[in-house]
């Protein structure tokens, strides 16, 4: 038995996002080398900012500027960066609490090795040279030797999260300011490219079908229970839920059961409009497959038309079907296949 086929499947699309007021201010701020958080009713400053309070569900709109320096609250070393990650060389994923903020931001830290990273490490933003209003306007973080930790003498920030609440009433050094988040020419939307890489296999049944197609034969499978012939085969009958194994050659001729006339050009298809897109029940098959009809003016195609495949050298599937010259099939013969 031939091996199941395999091929890469890349799913890739540039999605657009409307940002809403808070993310618009945050990303426009990054473009202007300003990090903004949002202030909650109880005075906490959340960075990155969110539109709605995670605790109370209140709408949050009061923006506050925080420092570009901060402290690593936890981290993980990434020894083998993948495509699209912030740095091409090994780096640490870090959660950074910027000075003045109450929550931590996820980003990359450029460090020579895991030995150079620790919780409590002081870091600063490395701004990207070209900034467009995107999280990547922060190219990454880097270790910061400048001014001392404003929390020095306090417990490790990670531990500090666990101290009793009373402690939180002591005024904390903040660089948080009352930036109103208004900028000239704000960023209101971004494009977020998404890409997924799959290693795709159609499985054994479809692979058998595709191997037969290469010999210009159409081979389906018959269900042992309901006796229906599936083309293309799926290896199982969707109605009975049993495996199918019996190979049945069908066609090559068939009957147009129904169709539509396509008048609008689809983006990735190089087919002149109008053309006929038809459901064709190949002789011996119990459900119709879909294909284009050619070799006949589009407005003369009809239900019941008898057709045969037209192969081209380059194509895995018949390029289209054309009239076979036989008389039309009677409606009663194919109406159950509609």
């Amino acid at each position, binding site marked *: 038995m031939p091996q199941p*086929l395999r091929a890469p499947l890349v799913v890739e699309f540039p999605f657009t996002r409307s940002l809403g007021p808070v993310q618009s201010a945050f990303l426009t701020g990054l473009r202007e080398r300003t990090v903004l958080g949002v202030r909650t009713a109880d005075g906490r400053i959340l960075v990155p900012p969110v539109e709605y309070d995670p605790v109370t569900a209140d709408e949050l709109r009061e923006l506050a500027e925080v420092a570009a320096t901060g402290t690593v609250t936890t981290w993980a070393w990434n020894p083998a960066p993948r495509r699209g990650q912030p740095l091409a060389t090994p780096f640490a994923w870090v959660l950074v609490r910027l000075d003045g903020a109450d929550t931590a931001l996820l980003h990359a830290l450029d460090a020579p090795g895991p030995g150079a990273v620790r919780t409590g490490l002081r870091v600063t933003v490395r701004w990207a040279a070209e900034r467009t209003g995107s999280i990547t306007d922060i190219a990454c973080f880097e270790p910061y030797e400048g001014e001392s930790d404003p929390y020095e003498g306090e417990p490790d920030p990670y531990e500090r999260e666990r101290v009793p609440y009373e402690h939180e009433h002591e005024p904390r050094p903040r660089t948080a300011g009352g930036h109103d988040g208004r900028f000239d020419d704000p960023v209101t939307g971004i494009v977020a490219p998404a890409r997924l890489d799959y290693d795709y296999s159609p499985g054994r049944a479809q692979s058998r079908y595709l191997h037969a197609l290469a010999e210009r034969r159409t081979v389906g499978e018959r269900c042992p229970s309901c006796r229906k012939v599936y083309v293309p085969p799926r290896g199982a009958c969707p109605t009975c839920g049993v495996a199918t194994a019996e190979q049945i050659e069908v066609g090559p001729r068939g009957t147009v059961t*129904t169709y539509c006339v*396509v008048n609008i050009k689809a983006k990735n298809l190089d087919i002149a409009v109008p053309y006929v897109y038809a459901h064709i029940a190949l002789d011996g098959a119990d459900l119709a497959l879909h294909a284009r009809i050619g070799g006949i003016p589009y407005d003369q195609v009809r239900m019941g038309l008898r057709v045969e495949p037209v192969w081209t050298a380059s194509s895995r599937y018949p390029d289209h079907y054309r009239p076979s010259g036989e008389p039309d099939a009677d409606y009663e013969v194919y109406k159950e296949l509609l």
Partner: protein
Amino acid sequence: MAEEPVAVVGIGQTRHRAARRDVSLAGLVREAALRALADAELTWADIDAVVIGKAPDFFEGVMMPELYLADALGAVGKPMLRVHTAGSVGGSTALVAADLIAARVHTTVLTLAFEKQSESNAMWGLSLPVPFQQPLLAGAGGFFAPHIRAYMRRTGAPDTIGALVAYKDRRNALRNPYAHLHEHGITLAKVQESPMLWDPIRYSETCPSSDGACAMILADRAGAARAPRPAAWVHGGAMRSEPTLFAGKDFVSPRAGKDCAAAVYRQARITDPRREIDVVEMYVPFSWYEPMWLENLGFAAEGEGWKLTESGVTELDGDLPVNPSGGVLSANPIGASGMIRFAEAALQVRGQAGEHQIDGARRALGHAYGGGSQFFAMWLVGSEPPTT
């Protein structure tokens, strides 16, 4: 122990539009949720659980958006569920929420569905370049148009019926302030003269692509008693599914749709839907699906659905108005479209449908379907509580 009766006590929708560039996904769902809370005169604290639905993640490219939307929907510290049944999802989402009340798991549930089609690419999301497979040659309209031709052949319906549906729904939408399309100069001739896209489907017989969200607050009997406005009561609800393609599938009138309707009528003790149901909000993305679903849902005998449309029975002033809101043909935020049908049915029996209110509507059917006619979800709501 009998099920707890389920009441719809709050409904909120966004004004559906081609693009809502002023809000994020979170801002969009928040708008509908706040309007539903206001309608019910409740706050976030009154909500026990959130049940949310949308079309496939690929549409907007946000994986598991329900996680990110928990803050906007006040779901922190509460159960939050996501339902996923393609285009029917708005309906099945509402039914999952209703079941949580009926089973007395919760007393007050927020259910919401949305789509931001301006930031999505439904066509791309539905036609991935799968290796070894032939590309779908014709898009969504090309998928459904051959089935419409099959319906016409099977029933002998004149080819004028589709335009009548579109003309009616677009006129109805003029009375619905939330509808996306408000075509003030619409005429039957304009529909009939619009470009033929996928013959037999014309441009004006297709749904638009919309940004929008719809939310409902469902409550138990005690919640309904406290509600400031009349409740809609759920008398029946069901979901059915079947494969997209199988030998013997009836694309014109899928078995899953018939079975789903039959289950709803059985629960609601309806024996003659045509007489006992006052108004229908059904999922009609292409005009011809109105007569097709009229038969599938048991409002007309097989082959007779188009006659109801042709004779004006489904008009706003007919004796079985279909889609007084303007329907999917006038607003289609895909994931929300099913819930909008359910919510519009509830608005009718609450007497809250405004300009498109059907006088005296006591029982209304909300209907949704999705995928390749493979998922069905329906509910029947009434102005009076179910008798046990």
